[in-house]
């Protein structure tokens, strides 16, 4: 038997979490070291998976299947294709850097890492799932630790409210999707939850048109689709830094990915029927999200709403239902994940030192933290879609695909790039290059080397994908081909 690499990826975090829970709570350094070891292991495993995927061969690789509940055709079934391989890598990267950034957490770090790792296992599980039941199982595992992570370690002012709002939104979405999944299972008559088999189930057109919105929106809530995006900025802002990174960086992709995997790929006729109006919703996401971001006075809210805007681009890419748009969306999921993790790491670093996030009260951080400044500028360039950075590789195909299918929407959506540039440049100008308020002078401490490693790592990934696209594009393209085969477009 082959080495079950994907199972190792999925279960490394949760096993590490269990081990960490056995360490006495007051031995905080041991706990952190154990967490870092687990994070590094998960990162290495995910890098290995990513680079050993054979693009020539295509299809699902590293497949493992064990029957779980044979009577109902439920199995533990995992595999990797071009679409989810980058997401596994993304999760590994964010988990690793998230542990680094969370080094300073002093209130019950043991519980923090346990919950964070349960979350990570849920995320990995969804990304590699080939079984519909398993996907939902892990999806919900990823939802509930969020509540505790935000409520316990979050920003004191809004954490209780934001955590509950976020959890209920996501739970409502997931249970509605669950009902849709059950309907699919029984309607198919195949007696299996295997998604590869369900792709050929031949659901009737009426069935697909009726159930598509439930399944698609059920998951897309977590992708932040308008008008169900409301939980997202509040949640991001209230969460502690590593959780914001995880949340905006990885969890929102979870929603978008599941909407694609279950909604679009299993109910393609429903998708082509409903997408014309869903694309308008994503247009609201993209443009309105950017506008809202530009008028925020709170640094973290700007980033929170920019996530809404960028995730809109992802779902917009899906909604084009053509291969160019899908390709862009696939890369955008990865690119935005890294970029927004970087942003939230920077926000966390600034807030920890300034104790305020009001943009007007910040300034001059370039002098004390050149590395942080550079990292943020690179992240900003990515988010504007500058050539030479991963954002360009992602957004350009999305707009191309959009131009093929809905030229007018492409024109309107392009406005968001300008707005994005405006709010990013405003932050760079004020926070990093402006005049440092007097009460800060001499009080801003340097960042430690762990933070530096995290920032450098994230930045390098963004640049690497930008200057050397072949590292990702052919891979995602092979995944897109599979999707196009199913939804029957060009």
């Amino acid at each position, binding site marked *: 038997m082959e080495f079950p690499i994907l199972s190792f990826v999925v279960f490394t975090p949760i096993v590490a979490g269990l081990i960490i*829970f056995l360490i006495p*709570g007051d031995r905080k350094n041991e706990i952190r070291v154990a967490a870092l070891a687990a994070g590094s292991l998960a990162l290495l495993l995910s890098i290995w998976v990513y680079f050993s995927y054979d693009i020539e061969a295509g299809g699902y690789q590293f497949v493992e299947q064990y*029957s*779980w*509940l*044979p*009577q*109902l055709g439920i199995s533990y079934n995992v595999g990797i294709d071009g679409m989810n391989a980058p997401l596994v890598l993304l999760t590994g990267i964010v988990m690793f850097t998230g542990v680094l950034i969370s080094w300073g957490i002093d209130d*019950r770090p*043991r*519980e923090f890492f346990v919950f964070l790792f349960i979350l990570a296992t849920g995320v990995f599980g969804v990304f590699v799932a080939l079984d519909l*039941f398993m996907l939902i*199982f*892990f999806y*919900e*595992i990823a*939802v*509930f630790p969020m*509540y*505790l992570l935000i*409520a*316990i370690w979050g920003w004191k002012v809004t954490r*209780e409210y934001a955590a*509950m709002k976020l*959890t*209920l939104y996501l*739970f*409502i979405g997931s*249970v*509605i999707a*669950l*009902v849709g999944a*059950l*309907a699919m*299972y*029984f309607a198919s008559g195949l007696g299996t939850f295997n998604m590869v088999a369900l792709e050929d189930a031949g659901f009737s057109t009426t069935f697909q048109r009726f159930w598509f919105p439930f399944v698609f929106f059920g998951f897309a809530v977590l992708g932040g689709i308008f008008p169900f995006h409301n939980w997202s900025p509040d949640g991001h802002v209230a969460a502690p830094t590593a959780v914001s990174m995880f949340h905006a960086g990885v969890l929102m992709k979870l929603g978008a990915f599941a909407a694609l995997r279950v909604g679009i790929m299993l109910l393609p006729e429903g998708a082509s029927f409903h997408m014309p109006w869903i694309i308008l919703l994503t247009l609201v996401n993209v443009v309105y999200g950017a506008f809202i971001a530009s008028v925020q006075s709170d640094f973290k809210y700007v980033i929170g709403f920019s996530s809404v805007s960028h995730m809109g681009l992802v779902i917009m890419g899906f909604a084009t239902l053509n291969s160019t748009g899908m390709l862009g969306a696939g890369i955008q999921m990865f690119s935005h994940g890294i970029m927004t993790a970087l942003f939230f790491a920077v926000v966390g670093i600034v807030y920890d030192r300034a104790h305020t996030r009001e943009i007007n009260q910040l300034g001059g951080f370039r002098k004390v933290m050149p590395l942080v400044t550079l990292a943020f500028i690179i992240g900003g360039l990515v988010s504007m879609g500058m050539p030479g950075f991963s954002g360009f590789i992602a957004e350009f195909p999305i707009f191309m695909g959009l131009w093929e299918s809905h030229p007018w929407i492409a024109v309107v959506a392009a406005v968001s790039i300008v707005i994005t540039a405006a709010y990013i440049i405003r932050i760079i100008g004020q926070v990093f290059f402006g005049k440092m308020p007097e009460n800060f002078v001499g009080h801003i401490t340097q960042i430690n080397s762990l933070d530096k490693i995290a920032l450098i790592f994230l930045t390098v990934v963004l640049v690497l994908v930008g200057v050397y696209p072949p590292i990702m594009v052919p891979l995602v393209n092979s995944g897109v081909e599979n999707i196009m085969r199913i939804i029957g477009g060009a």
Partner: protein
Amino acid sequence: MYIDYSMLLAILPQISLMVLGGIVLILELVLSRDQYRNIGWVTAIGMGFILLLTIPALPEEGSEAIWGGMIRNDWISYIFIVMVVFGAGISALFAMDFRSLGKRGGFFVLLISATLGMTFMASAADLVLLFVAIETSALSLYVLASLFNDEDESAEAGFKYFLFGAMTSTIMLYGFSLLYGFSGSTNIFGIAESFRAGDVPVGVIIGSLLLVLVGFTFKISGVPFHFWAPDVYQGAPTPVAGFLSTASKAAGFIVLARVMAVVFQDISLYWGAIIAAIAVASMTLGNLLALAQKNIKRMLAYSSIAHAGYALIGLVAISMMGLSSMILYLVIYLVTNLAAFGIVSAYGRIVGSDDMSAYYGMSRRSPWLAFALLIALLSLAGMPPLGGFIAKVFVFAAAVDANMVWLAVIGVLNAIIGLYYYLTVLKYVYLYRSEDEDKPLPVTRPIKVALAVLTVGIILLGTLFAPWFDFATTAAASIF
């Protein structure tokens, strides 16, 4: 009547419960009052031993009626006997150190006699035996609920429970007498046969159905006969409340399922609609009222009303899938709710309060107990990888399978309300601070043992669910 070996084997659990009860009675005479607590170990280990004893007596596939048709020896009885015996054993462990409960003479005997009644409820196929079994368990439970008779709350709980219980029993008994009067048989299969012959007008059958349902709905604390539950759970000693909300409820469910599926098989459309209404009302009312509670035992009481509603969804589906999912639901719910009440009794014993505000800062005081509570409450909320998720998914699946998507939708909406109040408790536990954070929280050994078994059980039920589902399917098939 000739009694052969297999007939005795079939009621082995009941016989051994009698023996255990005798041993406990003798021990109470022999031991001094200080040593009464140890009877709890005897009871719990005895219950464990009974579970082991039943393994060679496993029923065959299908089912047989023995003891002149009084008793059914089938898988569904077996599973419910295991459930109530397990619940009693765990409750004995929780009760040992709960204030003066373990030291009171009679507690463990009453627990065993209640369990004995429930095991007969699980296997009775005759209305007379059924009624005797129900009353055996009920009378013991009335006393158990009021065991702290020097406290107003406990006395009130017992008395309330007794009054409502006696009233609904009477109505149910009237229903039984009608069934007998019109069919000329007390055996549930005999009644079903005579109904099938078509001599009895449908109106009469529906009338007796309604009367019988009153008693059963009371037992499972379904709306509209739920209102005793919060007061009784709150007032009764916590381990007793835990026992009431799990084993007693499970026993009620098997009686309900058996009588509905067998006696009223031909009018399943009617009772399907009635049970569906009870399910919807129980879920919705239970969850909504749980939102407003300030006392954790009351909150758990309303949540247990809601859970009765979820489990009923399986019965409403009137299918093999539905019945097996209901059985699985009850198994998982029993384990989970026992854990929740166990933690509440362990914690309440030390802090002396069951108010939600007493739970502030619990995780700092005792991370392990807090984690166990996290597991129990999230399982009740239906979160994977815990048992509650599987339980909910399968009852909803049964509803979708039976073309009752609307019922599944009501179910999932209720699950969302449920999540809210369970999370609120976890917020108190993990987030809020209290002045007593640094005080130690001694958890005694019996409670540790019981909680370890239950939390591992919750996780096992939620991750490796294939064997349990197999059992449930076999059991569901044996009901007819």
